[in-house]
């Protein structure tokens, strides 16, 4: 199950988690983001409790998007102990994304 993360709770969520936090930066007008959504859902389902998954709408959360310099979406960021452990820009096949996340579990 993928929750929403926002400017107001972003720091708290990524800092307090003891497992990697995966954030999918997206927007409703972005075609590739729509394709990536179900792929992330599937990965989240398969990894269970080993990582936490969130979506961040860049239109509604400009502060976080600009802090992490999001220049292209979709962007997936993997956070560990509050800092960026990996960044994937653009759509990727499911196995490629899952592999990158698993490296941090």
């Amino acid at each position: 199950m993928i929750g929403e993360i926002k400017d107001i709770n972003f720091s708290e969520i990524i800092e307090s988690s003891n497992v990697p936090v995966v954030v999918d930066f997206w927007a409703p007008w972005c075609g590739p983001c729509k394709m990536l959504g179900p792929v992330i859902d599937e990965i989240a389902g398969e990894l269970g409790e080993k990582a936490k998954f969130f979506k961040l709408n860049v239109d509604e959360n400009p502060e976080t998007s600009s802090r992490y310099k999001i220049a292209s979406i979709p962007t997936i960021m993997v956070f560990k102990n509050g800092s960026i452990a990996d960044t994937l820009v653009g759509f990727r096949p499911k196995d490629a994304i899952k592999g990158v996340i698993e490296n941090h579990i």
Partner: protein
Amino acid sequence: MDNKYDIAVVGSGPAGLSAAINGKIRNKRIIVFGSKELSNKVIKAPKVDNYLGFYGITGAEMKKQFKKHIDAMGIKITYERINAIYAMGDYYGLAVNEKIYEARTVILATGIEYTKPLRGEEEFLGKGVGYCATCDAPLYKGKIVTIIGYNKEAEEETNYVSELAEKVYYVPMYRGAYDLKRGNIEVVSDRPIEIQGKDRVTKVVLKEREIITDGVFVLKDSVAPNQLVPGLLVENDHIKVDLNMQTNLSGCFAAGDCTGKPYQYMRAAGQGQVAALNAVSYLDSLK
């Protein structure tokens, strides 16, 4: 029965058509994306002496024969341009603007014509460099954007970006009248040399001048195969395939010039056939 195609063939040159007829012979649901001319390279060939069975044929005549062949087999070509192909896991999503076609396997037969990337273009991809202005424009609200346009369609995207960005530089890579609407668009008739920056794009260096910019969009006719299919493995500008014409993505095959040299009709047609037959085996293995 769902509405997914069994095989989507991307390209209507010799490789794509050979894949299509073999997929059809094996009774698969196929869709072929391509152009009315089938292949610009074929129709331009003055004379072909190395296509077995057709000594001295012209390219135009060869195209007619290809057309007759697919017509006789009831194969229609869908005249739409695929923008991106997404590997969704057990199927592929083929995007044409807002529309998505779905297929279990894909055969890439796109030929090879894409222009070489600029220096810095690949390095800063996703860090200020993008290929879809309409996708990422809202991220550049109030910022400076440079658009390097290789065709007329790029002007439309430039007009759209100019509604959001503070300032847009348009660098046309072709001659003509430019249909640009707003006053914050500046046409720069100069040759781009390099995209520079540190961890993000900061400027574009041209032959005569430099432009300080937050983002660069490079808008071309055709994109490199790994841009078309995110995650696809490309080696030395060609799609990496094994002897079954299988790429690194399962269910995705490639054939013809896009897989490497020599760039020849018979090689392309042969590879298209191998790709189609292996796509068929792959489909059968899913059942």
